[in-house]
């Protein structure tokens, strides 16, 4: 078991990453906090098996994402927000715009679980396809095709929000 003070430092260092993956996935702050706490509790138990800082970051991303997918499956919250609930402002707006960001987050939260995980890791964690594949233990080809479909879907829906045609 790690030293308590050291472990608290690790929690502080990674809390925004873990919490944000959960929050963008679940779109529910209390549920995201609870899930993030569970991930750190599990990290505390598994700490001895981790070999480096990079390994720790990969482990946290993978476990958080898998927990989010499991949570949605158990809660039958997939997707949590229906596409019909996502507002589509008629007038174009320019980012960063809090309302636009909120709409895009809702749009992401309305995706099926696997697609949602890929999009969150791509945009929040700025990960490359190969990194995502390694993190989620998925074939690179599968990640590429699913990500491509998810992004096409998001672009089509979001282009109306942004008022741009790509």
């Amino acid at each position: 078991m790690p030293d308590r003070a050291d472990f608290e430092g690790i929690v502080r260092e990674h809390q925004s990453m873990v919490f944000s993956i959960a929050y963008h996935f679940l779109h529910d702050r209390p549920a995201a906090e609870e899930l993030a706490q569970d991930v750190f509790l599990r990290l505390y138990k598994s700490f001895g098996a981790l070999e480096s800082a990079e390994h720790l970051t990969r482990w946290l991303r993978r476990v958080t994402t898998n927990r989010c997918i499991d949570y949605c499956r158990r809660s039958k919250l997939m997707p949590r927000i229906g596409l019909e609930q996502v507002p589509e402002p008629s007038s174009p707006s320019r980012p960063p715009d809090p309302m636009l960001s909120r709409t895009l987050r809702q749009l992401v939260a309305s995706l099926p679980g696997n697609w949602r995980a890929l999009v969150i890791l791509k945009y929040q964690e700025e990960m490359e396809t190969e990194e995502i594949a390694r993190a989620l233990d998925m074939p690179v080809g599968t990640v590429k095709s699913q990500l491509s479909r998810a992004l096409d879907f998001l672009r089509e829906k979001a282009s109306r929000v942004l008022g741009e045609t790509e």
Partner: protein
Amino acid sequence: MSRLDDAFREALRRQEPPDGFAERVMARIQARPEQGGAWAGLLAAFQRPRLRWATALAAAALAVGAVEYRNERERRVEGERAKEQVMLALRITGGKLRLVQARVQRIGYAPRER
């Protein structure tokens, strides 16, 4: 890099968890049920955002239930005591009545002086 990519990057940027997150994680580690028994489990439940209210409500319901049970028991004991006093009063009254009845009968049968 498209404007849309930037918009998604902005929308999905990292956010800080609620204040005291790390402290709550450490409290749950400290209070893991296998390390501290039932009280530790209850304490750990209080650290979980979704269980916090449920645990508080359950504790409040338990407290109200305990007070109600105690009040009900006191009422029952007082009722039993009052019932015993009534029974005692009735027994005494019955005894007195029997005594009076016996005297009345004695007077009724006594020979009259001429």
